[in-house]
């Protein structure tokens, strides 16, 4: 394992959003700790899955990683550069290599722009290709890469279906020839029969171009399918991470266990036969997370130390990390 090259490394990443009171004179009265001390690494050419329930901070992690939000604290190393320390022109240049695919293919494409303009934007912004003819050729090539008809480049987003729009989003991300793409719930808004199309496309592109993905999702079945390694988030922190088979077949953290047992299996016999852990209650507010282990109010095996002590993030097996007192 150790010979594998690490492309992205995140250390102690924090992102707090202020809560303010007052209209004219705004005072900060607290903060939402959306991401609170998160560390992970991604090997070159692999897919890391980031899973968790809504509000756990997975999207904020992805956005903070790309510096769409500036982090409150922490480092994001990409190709030997700490993205949190650079700005302006240098950041813009580095951003060519880190791109994003968004969740909602309806909201993330400008309805008044043609496909050519949407996909070609980063070619112009980064001055990668300047000639009009050369730009069009490149755009056509990109559309072919995502299996869209290149002759449709002068159409508008509303003329495409959800799955096709997500392909346009993928083509846009690929335009600047990136090494790393954050996929933020790229299939959640799509119909079941379309999801597999987009997932297969992402897999094909990875093997063709050697892309590295951070795949943010809440669909644990799809994450198991597409990811090499998986990290599970709960209330702003990562509670467990590991190789996909290790994590799915031998989950250690009680939250991971409950989460996996809650995923429905499309097989009536298997799904009715298995033991399910039903968690009580809801995820607490990230503005005021529980003391000690953040999961302890819902944890079926929580003890006294869990209420006061924050568990260490430790490696219990090669590349299998967990934060729990009881493991």
């Amino acid at each position, binding site marked *: 394992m150790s010979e594998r090259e690490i492309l992205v490394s995140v250390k102690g990443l924090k992102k707090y959003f202020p809560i303010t009171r007052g209209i004219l004179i705004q005072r900060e009265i607290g903060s939402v700790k959306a991401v609170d001390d998160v560390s992970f690494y991604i090997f070159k050419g692999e897919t890391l899955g980031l899973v968790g*329930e*809504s509000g756990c901070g997975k999207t904020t992690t992805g956005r903070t990683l790309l510096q769409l939000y500036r982090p409150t604290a922490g480092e994001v190393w990409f190709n030997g550069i700490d993205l949190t320390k650079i700005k302006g022109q240098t950041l813009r240049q580095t951003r060519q290599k880190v791109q994003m695919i968004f969740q909602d293919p309806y909201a993330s494409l400008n309805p008044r722009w043609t496909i050519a303009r949407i996909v070609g934007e980063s070619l112009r912004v980064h001055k990668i290709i300047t000639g009009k003819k050369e730009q069009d050729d490149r755009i056509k090539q990109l559309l072919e890469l995502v299996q869209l008809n290149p002759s449709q480049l002068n159409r508008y987003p509303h003329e495409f*279906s*959800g*799955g*096709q729009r997500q392909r346009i989003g993928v083509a846009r991300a690929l335009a600047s020839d990136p090494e790393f793409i954050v996929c933020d719930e790229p299939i959640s808004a799509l*119909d*079941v*029969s*379309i*999801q*597999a*199309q987009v*997932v*297969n496309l992402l*897999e094909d592109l990875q093997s063709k171009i050697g892309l590295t993905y951070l795949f943010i999702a*809440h669909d*644990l*079945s*799809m994450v*198991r*399918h597409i990811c090499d390694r998986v990290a599970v988030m709960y209330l702003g922190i990562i509670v467990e991470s590991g190789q996909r*088979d290790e994590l*799915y*077949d031998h989950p250690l953290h009680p939250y991971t266990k*409950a*989460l*996996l*047992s*809650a*995923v*429905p*299996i*499309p*097989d*009536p*016999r*298997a*799904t*009715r036969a*298995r033991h*399910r852990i*039903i*968690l009580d*209650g*809801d*995820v607490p507010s990230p503005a005021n997370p529980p003391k000690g282990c953040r999961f302890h109010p819902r944890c079926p095996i929580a003890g006294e130390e869990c209420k006061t002590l924050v568990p260490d993030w430790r490696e219990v097996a090669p590349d299998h990390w967990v934060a729990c007192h009881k493991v």
Partner: protein
Amino acid sequence: MEPLLDVKNLRVQFHTLEGIVQAVNGISFVVEKGKTLGIVGESGCGKSVTVLSVMRLIPEPPGKIYSGEVLFEGKDLLKLDMAAIQDIRGQKIAMIFQDPMTSLNPVLTIGKQISEAIIVHQKVGKEEAFKQTVNLLDLVGIPQPEARYNDYPHQFSGGMRQRVMIAMSLSCNPDLLIADEPTTALDVTIQAQIVELTKKLQEKFDMSVIWITHDLGVVAEIADRVIVMYAGYIVEEADVFNIFENPVHPYTLSLLKSLPRVDSRRYERLAIIPGSPPDCIHIPTGCPFMPRCGYAIEKCGLENPQLAYVEEDHKAACWVEVKNGRVE
């Protein structure tokens, strides 16, 4: 045994500026007493319109129920006047929706909204209604029901709101609960809670349930019988084990093959269904699934197959008989 709900040849269309949307095209199904019927399909396949028609909640215009019968305990709901329907809604048939926030009144407390239904339908006093409401909130697993009686919807989380909706729907002991994608907006751990709760309550009150979803995993968990819909047609119908273990229609088969499983180490490439679902304005002649089907023959483009028995208790609408991924 007499079915609780018997829908026959239901046809619903919407007149829009773009054309006539053929939302539901002559479908028939039954719901047995105490059983759960799962209706599966992608967005726009007509599954919601079907149950809204049963409840007579289709806005007319633009919608119109062109034909069909909806027999509930022997009465045709489509022929009742609005006052009679009002009595059935809530008392006999209750419905919960995908987004509980839009179904609850934001300026009234939860307790008020539930007790109001009880007062109207059961004609009891305020105190009795309060007692019943607290019991219901307790039953659906809302902690400290008496304290939360006076809370407003925004003070509840998504999962808790859905519990409130279920409490409200149970307030008049309905015989049939229609759940239209009730867990789609919820996280998996909360979804598991709601599914367990529904199963428990169904057993307790001997209710029938229609559970609409696009998630085949949830259907596998909760349904006794399953209907698969595509472009306003039922393409396959069978009991839950049969539909998952022995799917016959190419659409059902491809959907199942395109799903990865959380409990399996098999990482084959996912099977895909090319193209996207038709928009129900321009439904192709012949079988609506034909343009995306890997098994299509010439006949499929000419004539739409009727839903017919392929074996005992298992119906499908397909010219080609597909079994376990093979054409026989």
